[in-house]
């Protein structure tokens, strides 16, 4: 197993070591495929975007600042490629401005706070929200919940939680202001919780509305 860091592998690839790229691809294959499959909801599309992502890495390898971390850079590319794919191919995509601000504490739009349902995790009953589901049911409902979310909220949720990117990294990745990243993630978590409750049904009592 090669012990070199990602950044060292990029440096080696620049110097002509072809195997360094293969190592990077192999190293990130499970994680990146997981991210793209969740983002696109389509395994074949995820594989296409996976290849395009590493093609972009190849094309931009000389421009990569090896003093910075490779991982956020890779997922930035992947997120952008995934978004491009989604725009071109998904009938579910609505034409929204991805840099549009989201109302603090909730989703974007014209609904008023008085009409909104407020989610408070501390007011949760404490019972596990998925306790009553077997593994197959759980996976099916999770997929249904995530796939039903708007693409721009799903994307930011995956980048923040699944990829553990910081707000700054996300802002840089999506090329949107930091405040928009925060408000959009708040909206994404709220929608995820709400949609999970609605999809799950039985978990409705777990949240204080």
């Amino acid at each position: 197993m090669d012990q070199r860091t990602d950044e060292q592998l990029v440096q080696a690839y620049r110097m002509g070591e072809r195997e360094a790229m293969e190592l990077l691809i192999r190293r990130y294959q499970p994680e990146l495929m997981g991210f793209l499959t969740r983002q696109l909801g389509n395994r074949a599309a995820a594989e296409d975007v996976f290849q395009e992502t590493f093609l972009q890495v190849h094309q931009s390898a000389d421009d990569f600042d090896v003093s910075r971390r490779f991982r956020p850079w890779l997922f930035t590319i992947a997120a952008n490629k995934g978004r491009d794919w989604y725009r071109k191919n998904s009938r579910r995509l609505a034409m929204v401005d991805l840099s549009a601000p989201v109302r603090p504490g909730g989703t974007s739009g014209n609904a008023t706070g008085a009409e909104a349902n407020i989610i408070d995790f501390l007011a949760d009953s404490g019972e596990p929200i998925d306790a009553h589901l077997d593994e197959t049911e759980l996976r099916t409902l999770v997929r249904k919940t995530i796939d039903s979310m708007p693409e721009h909220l799903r994307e930011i949720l995956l980048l923040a939680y699944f990829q553990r990117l910081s707000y700054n990294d996300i802002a840089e990745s999506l090329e949107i202001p930091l405040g928009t990243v925060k408000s959009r993630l708040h909206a994404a978590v709220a929608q995820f919780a709400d949609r999970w409750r609605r999809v799950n049904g039985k978990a409705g009592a777990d949240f204080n509305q």
Partner: protein
Amino acid sequence: MTEQSTSQNPDAHEVCLCEADCELLDALVECGFDVDRFEGAARIRAERLVHLLGLIDQYPVEPTEGPALVADTMLCIDQYERGKRQPVIATIGAEEGASPSFLGGFNWRSTLTAAAAILILVSVTVPMLANMRRTAMQQACLSGIGNIALGLTNYANTYDNSLPIHTASAPNGNWLQSRANSANLFHLAKAGFATFEDLACPGNPYVEPSQTLAMLENWPSAKATSFSFQNLMTRQRPRWNTPPTMVILADKSPIVEAAHRGQPINIDTLSSSHRRGQNALLSDASGIWLDSAQFGNDNIWVPDSCQAKHTCLNGTEVPGCETDSMLIH
């Protein structure tokens, strides 16, 4: 709720996190979702939030077959590099089954298919277009002949059913040495009974502009002559618009130049104007297309006395009778 999410899920409704959850979420993101950094109520809140988000890990993702995707990705990169080196025919010679489409290249199969399709298209359309062009020129020529017929009718009405004759009327003259017979037809336009455009077959590329022709007494060269007219160098001249029918005029004779050079002529040769035959004007004022040099039993290029297929003309030949066509220019 955005218009987008509402349109996607009509049952969706406005929902947002409370202020405390928002602050906690911000802190969790910045510490990588490490709940151990929180205490008391904040920790409970953090654990419940992280537990909810942990559901994302349950999203079903099929395990990938490592080597295949890695190999495909490296192949994708290799194809891109080849495409950069050969931008015009990007991936000719690439591995079969490879899909270079998103690289914007062509593989050898698509290139050959396109080339074959173009070849078939050209082989079908070029002869078809050439044929259409020839047919259009024939029709334009026939239209000109129709106007000449009208001009001859007017001329004959004016001059006792005579055909126009200008300078080549010397009896016993040699038509190879005398002024060209075409001057007789040229006179039709000069006298105002037809236009020079009518006398210029579109199949003849040597026609001069009308302004130039108006200053002349005949076509400036044999090449510029489009039609051959009945040889009137005999006392037995045909009359216009009277039966029996004979050919009075046709596209330029193919044999006169050979006769000028003293070479044997072939009486079956077709006019060079359209190559497949010639338009002809009959003495009853009708125009027809002839695909041979014969009209009935009469050869339109030579007098009845000249029946040998290959012979030489000396300039003394004249039509044998009023119904004998002999078209010269």
